[in-house]
């Protein structure tokens, strides 16, 4: 691939992104409709005055789009303007022109709204305002730590096990039914079981990462080991290398690209799963962040979080991709 070709691809990517944002902006653009007041007739204001409402109060309500019947209701309930203010102000009652309840106030956020939210978050990523409100940087740190711990455990188990399965056709066949049954189980299905058995939500979420990332690595390691060229092993045998040394110095480097490919798949899945697991368990982490914003129905900041999750996933993928490139070899 030459430089010019890459440049063209980059320009195309940028174009697609711009089109996407423009479309998004167009679809979410809302003309801000001002509430139009409905002036009270002199008859109506006389009636309201009779029920004890001050002239300025009733004019203020009318100017904010309330119809006569609603203002009459306020007067009938004996609510002063101070009472209404204590309840968050008449604006928060959601009446627009004609006293109708506003339809779907919190529509889908526009790109500029998401950007504002993102800017707020990025400006101070490590703030800590108590156990339930921490900056995006701290949330990311916890999610990455969980993924790291679960993933590392899975590496420690799956690579030796994969070697064993790959080097011995007998073990391979014996293990197959278990692997095939366990592999398709959604890791989230393990979560309640893990919570019940382990009795610790932190360890349970690490366990879930462990369970979901073990299978691709195990299968890829086994496959990589099994498909190392017989020639390499034969040469090792003629050189009278021990089985252990053969595994370490011949099979491992030969199978490394396949093993790393397994890792790449695993880390991708682990990152998918941790967000879902944290949404269920709560506490802290990117999943919790998304859940907490959902709970407040704050879509703009959820979309920002989704972008962050995507970008971190990309980086994780990139790191392991480099490892594959380094260990790759041409025959």
């Amino acid at each position, binding site marked *: 691939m030459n430089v010019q070709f890459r440049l063209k691809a980059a320009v195309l990517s940028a174009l697609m992104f711009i089109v996407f944002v423009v479309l998004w902006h167009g679809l979410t653009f809302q003309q801000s409709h001002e509430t139009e007041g409905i002036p009270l007739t002199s008859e109506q204001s006389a009636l309201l005055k009779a029920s004890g409402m001050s002239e300025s109060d009733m004019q203020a309500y009318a100017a904010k789009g309330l119809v006569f019947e609603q203002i009459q209701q306020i007067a009938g309930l004996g609510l002063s303007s101070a009472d209404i203010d204590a309840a968050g102000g008449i604006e928060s009652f959601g009446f627009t022109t004609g006293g109708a309840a506003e339809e779907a106030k919190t529509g889908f956020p526009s790109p500029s709204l998401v950007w504002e939210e993102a800017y707020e978050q990025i400006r101070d990523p490590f703030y800590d305002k108590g156990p339930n409100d921490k900056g995006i940087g701290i949330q990311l740190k916890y999610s990455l730590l969980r993924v790291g711990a679960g993933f590392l455990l899975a590496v420690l188990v799956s690579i030796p096990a994969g070697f064993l399965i790959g080097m011995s056709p007998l073990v391979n066949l014996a293990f197959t039914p278990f692997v095939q049954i366990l592999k398709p189980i959604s890791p989230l299905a393990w979560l309640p079981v893990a*919570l019940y058995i382990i009795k610790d939500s932190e360890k349970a979420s690490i366990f879930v990462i462990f369970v979901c990332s073990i299978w691709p690595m195990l299968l890829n390691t086994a496959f990589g080991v099994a498909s190392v060229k017989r020639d390499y092993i034969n040469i090792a045998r003629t050189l009278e290398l021990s089985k252990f040394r053969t595994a370490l110095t011949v099979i491992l480097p030969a199978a490394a690209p396949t093993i790393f490919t397994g890792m790449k798949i695993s880390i991708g899945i682990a990152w998918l799963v941790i967000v879902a697991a944290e949404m269920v368990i709560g506490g802290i982490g990117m999943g919790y962040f998304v859940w907490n914003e959902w709970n407040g129905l704050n879509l703009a900041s959820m979309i920002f979080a989704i972008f962050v999750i995507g970008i971190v996933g990309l980086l994780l993928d990139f790191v392991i991709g480099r490892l594959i490139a380094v260990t790759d070899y041409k025959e």
Partner: protein
Amino acid sequence: MNLTNDPFDPNIDLWNECGERSQSEEAAPTSIADFVISPKEKETQAFLSKRKFATGDPGSVTQRALENSVMKGIFGDDLSRRRFLKAVGASTAYTAISSLIPFHSLQAMVDDAMKKIEKKDLKIGFVPITCATPIIGGHALDFFKKYGLNVDIIKTAGWAVARDKCMNGEYDASHLLAPMPAAMSLGLGSASQDWRMVTNVNTNGQAIVLANKHKDKNDPKLWKGFKFGVPFEYSMHNLLLRLYVAEHGIDPDKDIQIRVIPPPEMVANLRAENVDGYLAPDPFNQRAVYDGVGFIHKLTKDIWDQHPCCCFGISQKFIDENPNTFIVLLTAILDATNTVELRQNRVAFAEAMSPRNYLNQPSAVLKQILTGIYPDGLGNIKNVPDRISFMPYPAQSMGVWILSQMKRWGYISKDIDFKSASDEIFLSTETESAMKAMSEKNRNVKWSDIPASKYPVYDVYGKEFDPGKVIEYIDSFEIKRS
């Protein structure tokens, strides 16, 4: 009730919630003589100024609360109290009354416990709903700190997770649904572990919300085929919804579908038309109106006024191991509960709970809920001050009612002794004594609507519930599963 009012001050109205210096007794001075301060009055002023204390001192607050209630108990109305104090002078009155009533005995219990706290650092779980106002607002406004406790409150995603985290020992105590300690102790839907319902954190405060497209179906008889959300199977929400629809001839198991949805996901599900309505805790009822997706069909207050809802749950193990911490924690929660029950504190609690760390909701929504002045989504403005109340006393009858409904709908299949089961799980006695330690004999304090019997009779949706006649009550329903 304001706990910091001095009941020996003849110039305040003790019965007036705000304890403002009342004007009724003191007319504007008309002659020179009115400006002269009598020696008795001087002595009274000196006595009162000695008794002033820093509001942050919890020991003095409980002491004062006790005196308040005793004075109210003795005099019955404010006029006679003030006349008496003016006649004999405050300090003489104090000496006379304290020789009769040992102000220090009950309060000493809390004081003593505060000196011997076994565990200072506590983790308390909560689900982000306004029911937990005494816990959430109590934390935001430093009620725990005031009693020497270092509490972290942890947001929990749903009731099943809250239960599991309680059982795992990750939480020392937690905001739970009123029926949950019963279900946990009986081992329904989980392993069995002894959990206790210590106080109600709230009463009322729930509502049935329907999607806007059902504006023309504002009558339960038209609800056949509807899908409803409730926050948990073992919840007052589920039991009240079942009772309500059944009273209108709808069988909750056959005619409608009831599914469990965690509270925060209610509005999103209503918007997506995944459900036709729900019986859920606030803020998600008012939030549906605020977002223009639904309207409030009925407040649960109108099904059973002062029904229990959420509770402060704690494990028997924790109580056994930390008896003093338990008393102090209970007192802190009761203090917060009592404070937010007062109208004038509601806005402050609403504002304190709005940030991301707590409820993560627009403060306007929380204010509408706590003040009870709100739009109902049908264009009306309502004023229902007790839309949500904070009455802590967990009467055993409430427990018996919950068990009766769990039996009615087949959640409990075996025969149980309703009263002894509820006696064990609902800690009325302990709560009552802690409440009394704060305001003994105070007939006017709202929370001390402690019923004369542990088993008061309730009116639930127009039907009398006598905890002595549970079987008859269950049998009287047409639609039931047992």
